[in-house]
Protein backbone atom coordinates (compact mmCIF):
# COMPACT_ATOMS: atom_id res chain seq x y z
CA UNK A 1 0.00 0.00 0.00
CA UNK A 2 1.29 3.44 -0.88
CA UNK A 3 1.76 5.58 2.19
CA UNK A 4 2.83 9.19 2.47
CA UNK A 5 6.21 8.00 3.78
CA UNK A 6 6.82 6.33 0.41
CA UNK A 7 6.13 9.51 -1.57
CA UNK A 8 9.24 11.43 -2.58
CA UNK A 9 7.89 14.69 -1.10
CA UNK A 10 8.02 13.15 2.35
CA UNK A 11 11.23 11.19 2.02
CA UNK A 12 14.69 12.63 2.54
CA UNK A 13 16.53 9.62 1.21
CA UNK A 14 14.70 8.97 -2.07
CA UNK A 15 17.37 7.52 -4.39
CA UNK A 16 17.58 9.29 -7.76
CA UNK A 17 19.66 6.59 -9.46
CA UNK A 18 20.77 3.05 -8.88
CA UNK A 19 22.86 2.68 -5.73
CA UNK A 20 26.59 2.45 -6.37
CA UNK A 21 26.39 4.02 -9.83
CA UNK A 22 28.62 7.08 -10.18
CA UNK A 23 28.92 9.87 -12.73
CA UNK A 24 32.22 10.75 -14.47
CA UNK A 25 32.82 13.77 -12.21
CA UNK A 26 32.14 11.67 -9.12
CA UNK A 27 34.61 9.07 -10.44
CA UNK A 28 37.26 11.78 -10.94
CA UNK A 29 36.75 13.08 -7.40
CA UNK A 30 36.82 9.64 -5.77
CA UNK A 31 39.98 8.74 -7.73
CA UNK A 32 41.60 12.04 -6.70
CA UNK A 33 40.78 11.44 -3.01
CA UNK A 34 42.25 7.90 -3.20
CA UNK A 35 45.41 9.17 -4.96
CA UNK A 36 45.89 12.03 -2.50
CA UNK A 37 45.42 9.70 0.49
CA UNK A 38 47.93 7.25 -1.02
CA UNK A 39 50.49 10.03 -1.44
CA UNK A 40 49.85 11.18 2.14
CA UNK A 41 48.49 14.56 1.00
CA UNK A 42 45.42 15.91 2.78
CA UNK A 43 42.42 15.54 0.43
CA UNK A 44 40.42 18.80 0.67
CA UNK A 45 38.64 20.94 -1.93
CA UNK A 46 41.59 22.66 -3.59
CA UNK A 47 43.96 19.64 -3.61
CA UNK A 48 41.16 17.50 -5.10
CA UNK A 49 40.59 20.07 -7.88
CA UNK A 50 44.35 20.30 -8.51
CA UNK A 51 44.67 16.50 -8.61
CA UNK A 52 41.83 16.22 -11.17
CA UNK A 53 43.48 18.93 -13.30
CA UNK A 54 46.82 17.09 -13.13
CA UNK A 55 45.32 13.76 -14.17
CA UNK A 56 43.52 15.31 -17.15
CA UNK A 57 45.56 18.11 -18.69
CA UNK A 58 42.76 19.12 -21.07
CA UNK A 59 40.80 20.19 -17.99
CA UNK A 60 41.48 23.23 -15.83
CA UNK A 61 40.72 23.42 -12.13
CA UNK A 62 37.15 22.26 -11.47
CA UNK A 63 34.67 25.11 -10.91
CA UNK A 64 33.81 25.87 -7.28
CA UNK A 65 30.11 25.12 -7.73
CA UNK A 66 30.63 21.84 -9.59
CA UNK A 67 33.31 20.60 -7.19
CA UNK A 68 31.54 21.31 -3.90
CA UNK A 69 28.11 20.27 -5.19
CA UNK A 70 29.55 16.89 -6.26
CA UNK A 71 31.51 16.49 -3.02
CA UNK A 72 28.30 17.16 -1.07
CA UNK A 73 26.42 14.60 -3.15
CA UNK A 74 29.12 11.96 -2.55
CA UNK A 75 29.00 12.63 1.20
CA UNK A 76 25.18 12.35 1.17
CA UNK A 77 25.47 9.13 -0.82
CA UNK A 78 27.82 7.65 1.80
CA UNK A 79 30.77 7.37 -0.62
CA UNK A 80 32.86 9.97 1.16
CA UNK A 81 33.08 11.14 4.74
CA UNK A 82 33.93 14.77 5.43
CA UNK A 83 35.55 16.04 8.61
CA UNK A 84 36.53 19.61 9.43
CA UNK A 85 40.08 19.74 10.73
CA UNK A 86 40.67 21.11 14.23
CA UNK A 87 40.52 24.94 14.32
CA UNK A 88 43.76 25.02 16.32
CA UNK A 89 45.66 23.30 13.47
CA UNK A 90 44.42 25.85 10.94
CA UNK A 91 45.08 28.71 13.34
CA UNK A 92 48.65 27.62 14.03
CA UNK A 93 49.28 27.45 10.24
CA UNK A 94 47.63 30.85 9.74
CA UNK A 95 45.03 29.70 7.20
CA UNK A 96 41.29 28.88 7.06
CA UNK A 97 40.44 25.37 8.28
CA UNK A 98 40.16 22.61 5.70
CA UNK A 99 37.39 20.08 5.20
CA UNK A 100 39.09 16.74 4.77
CA UNK A 101 37.53 13.90 2.77
CA UNK A 102 37.99 10.16 3.00
CA UNK A 103 36.64 7.42 0.72
CA UNK A 104 34.32 4.95 2.46
CA UNK A 105 33.99 1.24 1.66
CA UNK A 106 30.89 2.04 -0.45
CA UNK A 107 32.88 4.70 -2.31
CA UNK A 108 35.74 2.28 -2.96
CA UNK A 109 33.30 -0.33 -4.30
CA UNK A 110 31.63 2.21 -6.60
CA UNK A 111 35.03 3.38 -7.82
CA UNK A 112 36.11 -0.19 -8.57
CA UNK A 113 32.84 -0.98 -10.36
CA UNK A 114 33.12 2.16 -12.51
CA UNK A 115 36.77 1.40 -13.33
CA UNK A 116 35.81 -2.16 -14.38
CA UNK A 117 32.98 -0.80 -16.56
CA UNK A 118 35.41 1.62 -18.23
CA UNK A 119 37.88 -1.21 -18.89
CA UNK A 120 35.14 -3.43 -20.33
CA UNK A 121 33.91 -0.62 -22.59
CA UNK A 122 37.46 0.07 -23.77
CA UNK A 123 38.04 -3.62 -24.54
CA UNK A 124 34.79 -3.78 -26.53
CA UNK A 125 35.93 -0.91 -28.78
CA UNK A 126 39.45 -2.32 -29.28
CA UNK A 127 39.03 -5.67 -31.08
CA UNK A 128 42.14 -7.81 -31.56
CA UNK A 129 43.71 -7.08 -34.99
CA UNK A 130 43.72 -10.79 -35.98
CA UNK A 131 39.94 -10.91 -35.68
CA UNK A 132 39.24 -8.05 -38.09
CA UNK A 133 37.54 -9.00 -41.34
CA UNK A 134 40.05 -8.95 -44.22
CA UNK A 135 37.82 -9.63 -47.23
Amino acid at each position, binding site marked *: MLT*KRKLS*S*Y*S*LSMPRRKAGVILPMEYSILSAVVELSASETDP*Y*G*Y*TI*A*ASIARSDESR*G*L*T*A*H*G*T*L*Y*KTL*GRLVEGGMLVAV*WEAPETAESDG*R*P*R*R*RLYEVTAAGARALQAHANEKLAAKAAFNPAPGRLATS
Partner: protein
Amino acid sequence: MKGRPGLLNPGLAVWVLRWVALYTRGLPEAAARDRADEIASDLFEHNAAAVAAEQSNRATTVSILTRALTGMGADVLWRERQLQQEHRRQLSAASPALRTRYSRLSAVAVALGAAVAILTLASTVRVLTNVPTAWGVSSFTGLIAVTLGLLLALLALLRSSSRILGAVSFAALSLPLCLTVAQNTMYISLTFTQVMQSALAPFAATSYYLAFAVLFIPAYLLVAVFTTIAVRLRTLHRRIRVEACTPAHETSTLY
Protein backbone atom coordinates in the same frame (compact mmCIF):
# COMPACT_ATOMS: atom_id res chain seq x y z
CA MET B 1 38.27 35.65 4.62
CA LYS B 2 38.71 39.41 4.42
CA GLY B 3 41.36 41.03 2.24
CA ARG B 4 44.45 39.29 3.60
CA PRO B 5 47.78 40.97 2.80
CA GLY B 6 49.10 37.72 1.22
CA LEU B 7 46.27 37.45 -1.31
CA LEU B 8 47.15 38.22 -4.92
CA ASN B 9 43.72 39.70 -5.52
CA PRO B 10 41.83 40.38 -2.25
CA GLY B 11 39.03 42.18 -4.10
CA LEU B 12 38.25 39.07 -6.13
CA ALA B 13 38.18 36.88 -3.00
CA VAL B 14 35.75 39.30 -1.36
CA TRP B 15 33.58 39.28 -4.50
CA VAL B 16 33.52 35.45 -4.61
CA LEU B 17 32.58 35.29 -0.90
CA ARG B 18 29.81 37.85 -1.49
CA TRP B 19 28.42 35.57 -4.18
CA VAL B 20 28.59 32.65 -1.71
CA ALA B 21 26.75 34.76 0.90
CA LEU B 22 24.10 35.57 -1.70
CA TYR B 23 23.32 32.02 -2.81
CA THR B 24 23.46 30.60 0.71
CA ARG B 25 21.01 33.21 2.06
CA GLY B 26 18.00 31.59 3.69
CA LEU B 27 19.56 28.10 3.77
CA PRO B 28 20.01 26.08 6.99
CA GLU B 29 22.82 27.68 8.98
CA ALA B 30 25.12 24.62 9.01
CA ALA B 31 24.96 24.13 5.21
CA ALA B 32 25.56 27.84 4.54
CA ARG B 33 28.48 28.02 6.99
CA ASP B 34 30.11 24.83 5.63
CA ARG B 35 29.93 26.12 2.06
CA ALA B 36 31.30 29.58 2.96
CA ASP B 37 34.18 28.06 4.99
CA GLU B 38 35.00 25.59 2.24
CA ILE B 39 35.15 28.31 -0.45
CA ALA B 40 37.23 30.55 1.84
CA SER B 41 39.69 27.67 2.33
CA ASP B 42 39.72 26.96 -1.43
CA LEU B 43 40.50 30.59 -2.28
CA PHE B 44 43.29 30.70 0.27
CA GLU B 45 44.84 27.41 -0.91
CA HIS B 46 44.48 28.38 -4.59
CA ASN B 47 46.27 31.63 -3.86
CA ALA B 48 48.99 29.90 -1.80
CA ALA B 49 49.58 27.35 -4.60
CA ALA B 50 49.79 30.17 -7.18
CA VAL B 51 52.35 32.04 -5.04
CA ALA B 52 54.39 28.83 -4.55
CA ALA B 53 54.32 28.16 -8.34
CA GLU B 54 55.25 31.83 -8.99
CA GLN B 55 52.15 32.17 -11.15
CA SER B 56 51.38 35.70 -12.34
CA ASN B 57 48.69 37.72 -10.58
CA ARG B 58 46.73 37.92 -13.84
CA ALA B 59 46.77 34.13 -14.41
CA THR B 60 45.63 33.49 -10.82
CA THR B 61 42.85 36.07 -11.11
CA VAL B 62 41.63 34.55 -14.39
CA SER B 63 41.76 31.03 -12.91
CA ILE B 64 39.79 31.95 -9.75
CA LEU B 65 37.30 34.04 -11.73
CA THR B 66 36.76 31.22 -14.24
CA ARG B 67 36.17 28.70 -11.44
CA ALA B 68 33.69 31.01 -9.74
CA LEU B 69 31.79 32.01 -12.91
CA THR B 70 31.57 28.54 -14.48
CA GLY B 71 30.33 27.08 -11.20
CA MET B 72 27.48 29.56 -10.74
CA GLY B 73 24.90 27.31 -12.38
CA ALA B 74 25.89 24.43 -10.07
CA ASP B 75 25.74 26.82 -7.10
CA VAL B 76 22.15 27.76 -7.93
CA LEU B 77 21.16 24.10 -8.42
CA TRP B 78 22.82 23.20 -5.11
CA ARG B 79 20.88 25.98 -3.38
CA GLU B 80 17.63 24.69 -4.91
CA ARG B 81 18.40 21.16 -3.67
CA GLN B 82 19.23 22.40 -0.18
CA LEU B 83 15.95 24.33 -0.03
CA GLN B 84 13.99 21.30 -1.21
CA GLN B 85 15.69 19.02 1.33
CA GLU B 86 14.99 21.49 4.12
CA HIS B 87 11.36 21.81 3.04
CA ARG B 88 10.97 18.00 2.94
CA ARG B 89 12.61 17.69 6.36
CA GLN B 90 10.21 20.28 7.79
CA LEU B 91 7.24 18.66 6.05
CA SER B 92 8.13 15.20 7.41
CA ALA B 93 8.31 16.69 10.93
CA ALA B 94 4.90 18.42 10.58
CA SER B 95 1.65 16.92 11.87
CA PRO B 96 -0.29 14.63 9.45
CA ALA B 97 -3.21 17.11 9.34
CA LEU B 98 -0.94 19.94 8.26
CA ARG B 99 0.80 17.71 5.70
CA THR B 100 -2.56 16.71 4.22
CA ARG B 101 -3.69 20.35 3.96
CA TYR B 102 -0.42 21.31 2.29
CA SER B 103 -0.61 18.38 -0.18
CA ARG B 104 -4.22 19.16 -1.11
CA LEU B 105 -3.54 22.85 -1.66
CA SER B 106 -0.43 22.04 -3.71
CA ALA B 107 -2.42 19.57 -5.84
CA VAL B 108 -5.16 22.18 -6.47
CA ALA B 109 -2.56 24.83 -7.37
CA VAL B 110 -0.69 22.52 -9.75
CA ALA B 111 -3.88 21.22 -11.42
CA LEU B 112 -5.27 24.73 -11.94
CA GLY B 113 -1.93 26.08 -13.12
CA ALA B 114 -1.48 23.18 -15.55
CA ALA B 115 -5.01 23.68 -16.94
CA VAL B 116 -4.45 27.42 -17.52
CA ALA B 117 -0.99 26.87 -19.05
CA ILE B 118 -2.18 24.06 -21.36
CA LEU B 119 -5.24 26.04 -22.55
CA THR B 120 -3.04 29.08 -23.20
CA LEU B 121 -0.48 26.99 -25.09
CA ALA B 122 -3.23 25.43 -27.21
CA SER B 123 -4.69 28.91 -27.92
CA THR B 124 -1.28 30.25 -28.92
CA VAL B 125 -0.72 27.33 -31.29
CA ARG B 126 -4.15 27.97 -32.87
CA VAL B 127 -3.44 31.69 -33.27
CA LEU B 128 -0.04 31.04 -34.85
CA THR B 129 -1.48 28.47 -37.28
CA ASN B 130 -4.64 30.44 -38.18
CA VAL B 131 -3.17 33.82 -39.10
CA PRO B 132 -1.67 34.53 -42.53
CA THR B 133 2.07 33.79 -42.54
CA ALA B 134 2.75 37.24 -44.02
CA TRP B 135 1.77 38.83 -40.70
CA GLY B 136 4.81 37.32 -39.00
CA VAL B 137 5.28 36.22 -35.42
CA SER B 138 6.02 39.77 -34.22
CA SER B 139 2.26 40.60 -34.30
CA PHE B 140 1.73 38.09 -31.50
CA THR B 141 4.75 38.82 -29.33
CA GLY B 142 2.50 39.62 -26.36
CA LEU B 143 0.65 36.30 -26.56
CA ILE B 144 3.90 34.33 -26.98
CA ALA B 145 5.50 36.18 -24.03
CA VAL B 146 2.48 35.48 -21.79
CA THR B 147 2.53 31.78 -22.81
CA LEU B 148 6.22 31.44 -22.03
CA GLY B 149 5.68 33.26 -18.73
CA LEU B 150 2.86 30.88 -17.79
CA LEU B 151 4.97 27.82 -18.65
CA LEU B 152 7.78 29.14 -16.44
CA ALA B 153 5.24 29.86 -13.68
CA LEU B 154 4.00 26.27 -14.03
CA LEU B 155 7.56 24.99 -13.59
CA ALA B 156 7.88 27.10 -10.44
CA LEU B 157 4.52 25.79 -9.21
CA LEU B 158 5.70 22.17 -9.65
CA ARG B 159 8.67 22.67 -7.29
CA SER B 160 7.89 22.81 -3.59
CA SER B 161 10.60 25.42 -2.94
CA SER B 162 9.21 27.87 -5.52
CA ARG B 163 5.47 27.04 -5.34
CA ILE B 164 4.50 30.38 -3.80
CA LEU B 165 6.45 32.24 -6.49
CA GLY B 166 4.63 30.16 -9.12
CA ALA B 167 1.21 31.04 -7.69
CA VAL B 168 2.11 34.75 -7.53
CA SER B 169 3.37 34.61 -11.14
CA PHE B 170 0.08 33.07 -12.29
CA ALA B 171 -1.84 35.82 -10.47
CA ALA B 172 0.37 38.51 -12.06
CA LEU B 173 0.03 37.02 -15.58
CA SER B 174 -3.75 36.56 -15.42
CA LEU B 175 -4.64 40.10 -16.61
CA PRO B 176 -2.13 40.14 -19.52
CA LEU B 177 -3.36 36.64 -20.42
CA CYS B 178 -6.99 37.77 -20.59
CA LEU B 179 -6.06 40.85 -22.61
CA THR B 180 -4.01 38.93 -25.21
CA VAL B 181 -6.64 36.19 -25.50
CA ALA B 182 -9.38 38.83 -25.97
CA GLN B 183 -7.30 40.49 -28.71
CA ASN B 184 -6.84 37.19 -30.59
CA THR B 185 -10.19 35.46 -29.93
CA MET B 186 -11.16 35.30 -33.61
CA TYR B 187 -7.98 33.35 -34.43
CA ILE B 188 -8.57 30.91 -31.57
CA SER B 189 -12.20 29.96 -32.28
CA LEU B 190 -14.95 31.66 -34.31
CA THR B 191 -17.66 29.87 -32.28
CA PHE B 192 -16.13 31.12 -29.06
CA THR B 193 -15.95 34.66 -30.53
CA GLN B 194 -19.67 34.56 -31.43
CA VAL B 195 -20.64 33.24 -27.98
CA MET B 196 -18.51 35.92 -26.32
CA GLN B 197 -19.95 38.71 -28.49
CA SER B 198 -23.55 37.67 -27.85
CA ALA B 199 -22.87 37.41 -24.11
CA LEU B 200 -21.28 40.85 -24.01
CA ALA B 201 -23.88 42.53 -26.28
CA PRO B 202 -26.35 43.51 -23.46
CA PHE B 203 -23.51 45.08 -21.47
CA ALA B 204 -22.07 46.82 -24.55
CA ALA B 205 -25.52 48.31 -25.20
CA THR B 206 -25.38 49.99 -21.76
CA SER B 207 -21.73 50.99 -21.75
CA TYR B 208 -18.58 50.03 -23.62
CA TYR B 209 -16.62 50.19 -20.35
CA LEU B 210 -19.08 47.85 -18.63
CA ALA B 211 -18.64 45.27 -21.41
CA PHE B 212 -14.88 45.62 -21.07
CA ALA B 213 -15.13 45.07 -17.29
CA VAL B 214 -17.30 41.95 -17.78
CA LEU B 215 -14.83 40.62 -20.37
CA PHE B 216 -12.14 40.62 -17.69
CA ILE B 217 -14.15 38.67 -15.08
CA PRO B 218 -12.17 35.42 -15.75
CA ALA B 219 -8.95 37.36 -15.16
CA TYR B 220 -10.22 38.78 -11.83
CA LEU B 221 -11.21 35.25 -10.77
CA LEU B 222 -7.79 33.85 -11.68
CA VAL B 223 -6.03 36.68 -9.83
CA ALA B 224 -8.21 36.07 -6.76
CA VAL B 225 -7.74 32.27 -6.83
CA PHE B 226 -3.97 32.31 -7.33
CA THR B 227 -3.47 35.11 -4.79
CA THR B 228 -5.49 33.11 -2.24
CA ILE B 229 -3.42 30.00 -3.02
CA ALA B 230 -0.17 31.95 -2.58
CA VAL B 231 -1.30 33.45 0.75
CA ARG B 232 -2.51 30.08 2.08
CA LEU B 233 0.68 28.32 0.95
CA ARG B 234 2.71 30.98 2.75
CA THR B 235 0.67 30.52 5.93
CA LEU B 236 1.08 26.72 5.74
CA HIS B 237 4.83 27.08 5.08
CA ARG B 238 5.15 29.19 8.21
CA ARG B 239 3.17 26.70 10.31
CA ILE B 240 5.21 23.78 8.94
CA ARG B 241 8.43 25.67 9.81
CA VAL B 242 7.15 26.39 13.31
CA GLU B 243 6.15 22.75 13.85
CA ALA B 244 9.55 21.54 12.56
CA CYS B 245 11.33 23.77 15.09
CA THR B 246 9.01 22.97 18.00
CA PRO B 247 9.11 19.77 20.10
CA ALA B 248 6.11 17.48 19.45
CA HIS B 249 4.51 17.97 22.90
CA GLU B 250 4.43 21.76 22.44
CA THR B 251 2.80 21.87 18.98
CA SER B 252 -0.68 21.16 20.36
CA THR B 253 -0.56 24.38 22.36
CA LEU B 254 0.41 26.49 19.33
CA TYR B 255 -2.95 26.48 17.56
